[in-house]
């Protein structure tokens, strides 16, 4: 078995007296999509925050490529190759789609303390950005300001931005939320192609998509990890069914 890229080791997080993450341990291996599911309020988003570095755990460690990054900030982790998309679409509305991606490429391309050349004339960045946009299917929309794109298109742009940084792993927070059936189809295809390039830790509500995509699935409930396993294992697990009882999305 290959070395895991990301390891979460007994993470703990409390808000006041409420334990939202309890002793959560899981890992992410090369070439896989590892989905994180659970009912609303199970602590999925908190866990994503802990992994990306916008929140600090009260206990436990986060290892990236074997390196302890628990104390590092969001930008520092990003520089080590952790790319993240956000539950609320987080693109730069005043920038064109192309420039959004070019900025991401710029992050991985030497110093940004360059003052004398107009950045939007840098052919190398622009070409690479265009290629990335083509890859996610947004090539025709490159010059449109991100603020003017449709919801689904902004999702695609988020993905383009994420992969443009050539990350070691992708952290995707509900990439399919709000997408129509057609867009969902397209995004699922895209994610499947992406996982060969870098592994994905995926939080998603759309169960059909999760079962179609994920190599492994972990179930969170009330801050605790109930089980990790394949789609079939998960569906058969009794505790999972209890946790989801009444939740229609687990249909």
């Amino acid at each position, binding site marked *: 078995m290959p070395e895991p890229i990301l390891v979460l080791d007994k993470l703990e997080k409390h808000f006041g007296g409420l334990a939202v993450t309890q002793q959560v341990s899981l890992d992410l291996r090369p070439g896989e999509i590892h989905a994180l599911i659970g009912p609303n309020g199970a602590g999925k988003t908190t866990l994503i925050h802990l992994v990306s570095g916008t929140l600090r755990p009260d206990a436990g460690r986060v290892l990236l490529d074997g390196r302890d990054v628990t104390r590092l900030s969001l*930008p520092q982790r990003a520089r080590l190759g952790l790319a993240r998309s956000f539950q609320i679409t987080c693109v*730069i509305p005043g920038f064109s789609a192309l420039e959004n991606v070019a900025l991401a490429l710029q992050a991985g391309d030497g110093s940004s303390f360059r003052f004398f050349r107009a950045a939007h004339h840098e052919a190398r960045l622009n070409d690479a950005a265009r290629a990335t946009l083509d890859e996610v299917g947004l090539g025709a929309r490159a010059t449109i300001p991100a603020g003017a794109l449709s919801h689904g298109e902004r999702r695609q742009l988020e993905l383009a931005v994420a992969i443009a940084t050539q990350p070691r792993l992708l952290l995707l927070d509900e990439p399919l939320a709000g997408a129509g059936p057609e867009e969902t189809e397209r995004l699922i295809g895209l994610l499947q192609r992406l996982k060969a390039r870098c592994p994905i830790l995926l939080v998603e509500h759309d169960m059909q998509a999760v079962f179609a995509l994920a190599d492994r699935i972990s179930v969170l409930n009330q801050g605790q990890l109930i089980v990790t396993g394949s789609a079939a294992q998960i569906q058969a697990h009794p505790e999972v069914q209890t946790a989801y009882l009444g939740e229609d999305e687990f249909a």
Partner: protein
Amino acid sequence: MTRLLRPSLLLPLLALAALAAAPFLGFGDRFALTLLSRAMILGMAAVSLSLLVGGAGLASLGHAAMMGIGAYVVAALDLAGITEGAIAFPAAILAAAAFAGITGLVALRTSGVYFIMITLAFGQMLFFTLSALSALGGDDGYTLYGRNTFLGADILTPRLSFHFICLGLLAASWGLCAMLSRSRFGRVLRAARETPLRVEALGFSPFPYRLLAYVIAGGIAGLAGALLANAMEFVSPAVASWPRSAELLFMVVLGGVAQLPGALVGALAFVLLEEGLAHVMSAWKLVFGPLLVLAVIFLPGGLTGGLPWRRRKQERRADA
């Protein structure tokens, strides 16, 4: 070529051309040149502030302090018998940039209104310090006996020469700020203004970018301050007062926050309007005040035009 015809560029280019032609079109008397050079100097400070407000989303209410430092460096060197501009001007720029660097380290920890207020606080501290500087006349100010020379040449005193030096430095400041905001550096700044979380998720810490922008803008304002000291041949703490900072902010907004050269148009419009109104009536503020209010309400994009995407954003917000 069509790029030059956009209102955001056309208006300031016309303004610069008009400034260059003005001395030959009947505005060559000393008063007109005094007024125009004051407008150009304030325009320089406003352009540098625009790099912060429009480029980085940092509305500083202490920008006049940087001008004050530049002006007082010229005065302090004059007191020490140094009138060489090749020393005084770089010293003014460096001192203002250093002040910006030190205060920026603290101020940039905050954002939004808190940033406005903490920059005001630093500005006020400097203002009171200058007012207490007995050696430089305290709040009576200090009269320079003559302008700076450059390598011995008296190029700042002849009126036309001074006019074109101001114009040249104004154009250069604009060019520098424009180049910065279009560069990779400026792209990160602009991105961090709009969506700081995204920028951090890409691995950038906005802080060093903002600090550097703050320092550069401070240096340009320091240069403007040194020029102002030479234009007035007099410095007083009023250069660094907070109403002056508010005026600079207003010039930026009047011209249009989103467009860097808007500040230039805003500064010209502001100075000429103020003097024009004051010339015809003593209660000019009764007209000027409502004009400010109306300009803010009805010209949301400033004189150099609107911000299409931002309007859309507002509409979206209204839908939500």
